[in-house]
Structures are given as structure tokens and as C-alpha cells.
């Protein structure tokens, strides 16, 4: 085994670090937490200007999964919000792969330049982990589709130009087969967005569709092929698009506070910091493995599930430890005098629960490992 990065990958990593240093400043963080919109247009656009977003998307550029991993690894380590960017890239990859010439022309340029955002309309009030059960309906009416329903967790919908929308077009077919994906302009009449506020300061949304009328030109990947279209998105992510390195900034923030206060001299605290450093190394190696497998032409679905299971559990354990170790300073938010690590420790305590939920819950990932890796019988 060889764990070193190639010269090219090392240079790519350095360039990402440079872009972050150039465009991400502490006042941006303040803005995210004030507005609830966790996105960094200046940073994303600088990546785009250098051709790095195009380069990441298979078909548009090199599409190297190792570079994809490096990009999100660096963003996450630097505590830069990366979700909005990951959706831009996922939708770009899907449109490029499945889209018509018309769709590619209309959508790709605005996304890949990071001038537009997209949002994912997958989950619904009644469909979360069981996403294939969506009930948002697209009904044929002449040469148009009429869409009615609602979507949850459509983060960035309030700023996005595009939504990827999973609908049910044929309720008579088995649930995975009657689904169709649309990619719609957000200004289509009948779409409305309501904020959903989270305990992590982040704004997400509920998006409603009332008699939204669109033509076939907005169907992505074919009629009743919505499930396969979702698979294309997953194939692009390959388990390396974030959520497995949150422990790195956690440890950095905590250590900064612990050294300022002298707590870093306490053996019990040093042990927990060392344990977190080990967990961070393991999380990195598991994700690095997925990236390497993807670069070798494999689809690391099970490996991605393993990385997420390990990394998110380890992160939540670390957050719990360090908030306790910070004592009362761990209660104080950004901007308060005496807040541990300027308020990061308190914030991580509110952010942590999300990690074992979004992008595939712990339970769904355990099902994947149990069935596909351990070969255990289907649950009753």
C-alpha cells in the first residue's frame, strides 16, 4: 500500500488551500450564522474561475475521484460550508450525463461557474429514508406535466435557480419504477419556498408545488427512470463528498482553547484529544480508500457507508467530550466573551446531530453493510 499523493494531486490540494485562504474570512462565518445561509459564493466562484469545478465533473473535465475527495476534504477541514457546492456538482454531473442538449446548454454553464445554486427535491414530509415512496405527483395533461406536492430539506432553495425534483409519474408501477426526475427553474409559476430553521443555525426549506405546469423539456433521464437518475448522483458522490472529516476542525478548535486556558496539560483531556486524532486518521483513511477505489473504476458503495458510519459516530463522541471538557465555556455562543474556541465548541454541539441523519442515516448505512457486505438475510 502507498498512502502518498501524486505530485499532481499534491499541487491540486495546495491550490484548494490557496483558494480557501484567499476567499474565506471569519466575517463570512459570522454572516452564515446570522442569515442561516451556509454558502460561500466568493470561494465557489474562485474555484470555478480557475476551472477547478469543471475539472471535477466526469465528462466535463478529468473527473478524478481523488481530486473530488481532496476538494471536500480541504473544505471540511477548514470548516468551510460545502453543502451548496456539493449540490452544484451533483446536479452538474447528472445533467451532463443524463441531460438533453437543451438542458446542458441552459443549466450547466450557470452551475459550473457557481453563479447559480441548485437544490435537491428528494425528501418529502412523508418520505425520508424511504425516498422511493415519494408522493409528489406529475400528471400528464396534453403535452404538459402538472406537478403537485411538497419537498422537505430543500436547502438553498431560497437562493437556487434550479431544483432537482423527484416525482411519481406512474402510481400503478412498483414504487421504484414509477418515478421521474425533473430539473426545473425555480421561477416556474406555482413553486413556493418556506424556511425551516434548524438547531444548527442553518436555514433549510420546505418547497411546495401547486399546479406547476412544465413540458417534457424538463424531464431528466427519461420517463419513469427517476430511480436510475438518483443512482447517477450517488455514483458521482462515491462516498467522498464530505461528512467524514468533521473531527479535524473540532480537534483544532478545541485544542486552541485548551492551550489558551492550560486545559491541554490535563492528562485526561490529552487522552481524549489523542483518541480524537486517531479517529480522524482512521476516518481519513477510510475515505481515502473509497476515493482510490473509485479512481480504480470500482463503485465504493459499501465502503462509503462504512466511512460515514465510523466518521459520524466518532465526531459525535468527540463533540460530546469536548463540550464537557470546556465546561461552562462550552455553553457560550459565537461573539460571547469567554466562549470556548470563540463559540465553535457550542456550535459543534448543535451541528453534530445532523451528521448521522443527512445523506443516508446511520440505520440505512448499517442496512447496506449488513446486507451487502456481511451477507446477512433481509430483515423481517
Amino acid at each position, binding site marked *: 500500500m502507498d498512502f502518498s499523493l501524486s505530485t499532481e494531486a499534491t499541487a491540486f490540494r495546495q491550490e484548494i488551500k490557496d483558494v480557501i485562504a484567499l476567499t474565506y474570512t471569519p466575517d463570512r462565518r459570522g454572516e452564515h450564522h446570522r442569515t442561516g445561509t451556509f454558502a460561500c459564493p466568493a470561494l465557489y466562484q474562485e474555484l470555478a474561475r480557475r476551472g477547478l469545478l469543471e475539472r471535477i465533473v466526469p465528462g466535463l473535465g478529468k473527473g478524478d475521484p481523488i481530486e473530488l475527495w481532496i476538494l471536500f476534504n480541504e473544505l471540511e477541514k477548514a470548516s468551510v460550508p460545502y453543502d451548496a457546492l456539493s449540490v452544484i456538482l451533483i446536479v452538474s454531473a447528472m445533467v451532463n450525463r443524463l441531460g438533453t442538449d437543451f438542458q446542458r446548454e441552459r443549466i450547466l454553464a450557470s452551475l459550473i461557474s457557481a453563479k447559480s445554486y441548485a437544490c435537491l427535491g428528494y425528501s418529502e414530509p412523508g418520505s425520508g429514508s424511504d425516498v422511493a415512496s415519494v408522493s409528489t405527483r406529475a400528471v400528464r395533461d396534453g403535452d404538459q406535466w402538472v406537478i403537485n406536492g411538497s419537498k422537505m430539506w430543500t436547502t438553498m432553495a431560497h437562493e437556487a435557480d434550479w431544483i432537482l425534483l423527484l416525482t411519481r409519474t406512474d402510481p400503478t408501477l412498483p414504487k421504484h419504477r414509477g418515478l421521474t426526475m425533473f430539473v426545473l427553474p425555480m421561477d416556474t409559476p406555482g413553486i413556493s419556498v418556506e424556511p425551516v430553521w434548524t438547531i444548527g443555525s442553518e436555514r433549510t426549506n420546505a418547497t411546495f408545488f401547486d399546479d406547476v405546469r412544465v413540458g417534457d423539456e424538463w424531464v431528466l433521464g427519461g420517463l419513469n427512470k427517476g430511480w436510475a437518475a438518483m443512482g447517477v448522483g450517488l455514483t458521482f458522490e462515491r462516498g467522498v463528498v464530505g461528512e467524514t*472529516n468533521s473531527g479535524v476542525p473540532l480537534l483544532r478548535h478545541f485544542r486552541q482553547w485548551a492551550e489558551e*486556558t*492550560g486545559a491541554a496539560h490535563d492528562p485526561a483531556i490529552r487522552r481524549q484529544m489523542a483518541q480524537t486524532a486517531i479517529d480522524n486518521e482512521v476516518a481519513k483513511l477510510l475515505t481515502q480508500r473509497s476515493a482510490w477505489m473509485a479512481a480504480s473504476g470500482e463503485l465504493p458503495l459499501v465502503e462509503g457507508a462504512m466511512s460515514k458510519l465510523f466518521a459520524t459516530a466518532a465526531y459525535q463522541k468527540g463533540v460530546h467530550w469536548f463540550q464537557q471538557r470546556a465546561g461552562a465555556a462550552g455553553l457560550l455562543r459565537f461573539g460571547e466573551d469567554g466562549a470556548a474556541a470563540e463559540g465553535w465548541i457550542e456550535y459543534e454541539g448543535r451541528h453534530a446531530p445532523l451528521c448521522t441523519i443527512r445523506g443516508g442515516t446511520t440505520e440505512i448505512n*448499517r442496512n447496506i*453493510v449488513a446486507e451487502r457486505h456481511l451477507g446477512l438475510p433481509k430483515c423481517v
Partner: protein
Amino acid sequence: MKVSLSEDQRAVEELFSEFFAKTSEPMVVRRAEPLGFDSELWSKLCALDAPAMGVAVEKGGGGAGLAELVVLGECVGRSVAPVPIIEHTVAVRALPEPSAELLAGDEVATIALQSVTGGLDWGLIPAGAVARTVVGPCDGATVAVSGEPPGVAPSNHACMPVAFRTFEHDTATKLGDSSVWSRALSEWQILTAASLVGIAAKSLDTGVEYVKAREQFGRPIGSFQAVQHGLADLPALIDGARLLTFKAAWAMDASDPTAPTTTDVDDNDVNDPISLALMAYLFAAEVAAQVTDRVLHYHGGYGFAAEYDIGLYYRRARGWPLVLGDPAAQYQRLADRLFGAVSTDDASRKR
């Protein structure tokens, strides 16, 4: 970057996994208790030139790197083989001129793990019950001593051939400064981590087989989600421990003692082989303990019965690493390397 075994490593894996599967069946492991050493198995292993495998070619060995030895270590763990090949390997690698007897495995060598000042009282020595030569630290130096091994071990948790030994000071041969022993200790940590990965991996296999076969309430217990989810957490731990162990071996094999090692824990960039060895040892010890605990549990009462193999793995998962002492001390060593050492005067400052 390459996260799979090389062709050489694959060959090592094939050779030793087949070898131990045939020669170190649970019956053999049980028969070797309480000493934890099977001389017949050791002879068969010697016939494969395993004792000299990790010794440099110019010293008469097989020239294998630590990464190949990690592959061997995992095979040893999978079969909980009652042979001190890990201790022997790190000891002979530390000797400037290993004798023909040591290279052939006619004599066993080992490493003392406790650093003590002013003498050769090293506490409990792994493989000390069967090793003639012991490599250990002594007043800032690394020494080798020889003596007749007792051939019996104090009765212990994992039936390991450990022993307390006493040596005369003037029989010690100096091998170099303390860095010789430190390196051997890191190598022992890495190979022990590998063996613990083997213990964990084999235990999980055993657990999966068991829950598929065992029926309660009219169906295999492996079809219950509570059981599935308890097992589904384990592969990531095992794979993570294996990757970390290989990374430590890779860093150690590649390390140039004169070059500065780059470690920036704030950036999750750890390349220091000594830190990685500590990480691998500490993590693998936790993983092996957790995996064997959970798999034993899913056996129900039978897991507690001596007749079932999981008990052999459960005890060794705890015993093999514990001979180095309370892991708390190793966590502090790791913290010192990663975050900078703390002087004792500072310990209660400020807070």
C-alpha cells in the same frame, strides 16, 4: 496512492493464511494452553523460513519490509497461532548480527517492552517463557541478553508464554543507543496491531456465520435488525484498523531517520512513523476488544462456554496488547508527539 496489497504481499497472505488455517486450528490452540507455545507448529513455521523473513538479505534474512510482516501478523491473529513470531521478528531485526540459530528459529528471541532504569528487571516479557535472547533497554542504551528460558509461564488471561526473567548485568551486549529499542518497540506495536486486526476480522466472520445458523423465534437471529446493526458497525472499525496499521508500516518502511517527519495534526496530516505505530496499536486494541465482545455476546450463553472458539479470541484480544501495560500511558506518549510534551510543573497551571 494505492490502497491494496502488492503482488508480494498477496503471495505472503496466500502462503500464511493457508499455512495457519491447516496447522493452527482451534484444537491446536487449545492444546498449547496454558503455556501458549506449540513447538511443533513453531518448527513447521521455521521450515517456511518465517523467523528470518524480516531480516535484511545481507544479514542472511528474507529482506521483507514491515508491510509484508503486517500481512503475516494478521494471519497469526486470525488463527490466534501459539507461536511468538511477532516478538521473534522484531528482536532479530534489531540485532546487528543475528546468529544462524536465531535465523533458523532453533532459538527464539524476544523484546522487553518496559523501560526501566538501573537494571535489567523488565517486568513481564512477552514470549519470555520460551525465548533465549531478549532485546531490551538499559540506561539509555539497547542491549541483548541471553539465558535459559523457563519453559513455563505464570498462569494468565490469554495463555501467553510470558515470563519474568532476571539477567546478570555483565552478560549484556550493547546493540546501540536507545533508538534501536524504540524502533523495535514501534515495530512490535505495528505487528501486534496487525495480529489484533486478524483477531477482530476472524471473530466477525465467526459471528456472522453463527447468527446465520442460530435460530430463535423460528428464524435465524441474523435476520433481526438489532443483531444486524450491532454487527454492521464492526467492518468499518476492522478496515480502519487495518488501513492504519498498513499506513504505520508504510511510514516506517519509508522513513529516513535523518529526514524530519512532517506531522500537522491540525491539518490531519500525520506521517511520523512512531505516532502512527502508537495510533495503530491503540486503535487495533480497542477494535479487537469491541469486536470480540460483541460477537461473544451474539453467541448468547454458548459464547461464555469454553467449548466455543470465540472465547479463545476474546481473551487474546485483551491479553496480547496488555503486556505493554495500561494503554493510558501510550495515549500520553501519543499526545506528547502530536501536541507537544508537557512539563510536569505545568500540569496544574491556570485551570
